[in-house]
């Protein structure tokens, strides 16, 4: 399995698509997490993401290792943005390519679910009412 793991100020869906593109693969599943304009009914101005970068990259690699052990996935891109992000901005992209689609769905969902549980990245929410949440 080829893997692209990155944490950067700005990420794009296109770079993930470009990375996973391969004539050997018939099914690609992509998850994108974008900043919503509300959280539980409260208007959101922006999010601020920070990370413990060295450990976050290490935990992302562990997820990739688990994906490789469990499924016959050819390519996996795992990108996370940090810094100020506004509604509509992309915060995370997971892209998976495999010869067959069922396992691509499973691996993509596993990757984003596990990333949200284990990777040391934190967001702070800035609300339109002036409040700040964590």
């Amino acid at each position, binding site marked *: 399995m080829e893997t692209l793991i990155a944490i950067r100020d700005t990420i794009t869906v296109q770079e993930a698509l470009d990375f996973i593109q391969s004539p050997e693969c018939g099914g690609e599943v992509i998850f994108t*997490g974008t900043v919503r304009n509300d959280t539980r009914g409260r208007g959101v101005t922006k999010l601020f*993401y*920070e*990370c*413990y970068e*060295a*450990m*976050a990259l*290490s935990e992302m690699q562990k997820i990739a290792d688990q994906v490789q052990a469990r499924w016959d996935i050819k390519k996996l891109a795992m990108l*996370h943005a940090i810094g100020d992000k506004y509604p509509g901005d992309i*915060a*995370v992209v997971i892209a998976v390519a495999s010869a067959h689609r069922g396992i691509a769905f499973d691996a993509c969902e596993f990757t*984003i679910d596990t*990333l*949200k*549980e*284990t*990777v*040391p*990245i*934190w*967001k*702070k929410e800035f609300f339109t009412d002036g409040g700040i949440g*964590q």
Partner: protein
Amino acid sequence: MGLLLFGVAKDIAGAALVGIPETVTNVAELKQWLYDRYPAMQQLSSLMVAVNREYAGDTQAIGAGDEVAVIPPVSGG
């Protein structure tokens, strides 16, 4: 020995890096020291400690030369 703090733990401590006393020799003692010094950390739904960039259990020893970090509940994605 220095301790890295992130997210809400950093905000509670008011610092991204604090010194920890030499009497702290493992993860359990570190958590107790944090709870004593920063009672607001007791309110967090979880408080993990990473030693050398790996999640660490309560019995793991820590000492000079280790990279130790407080990991409040993560919220990436």
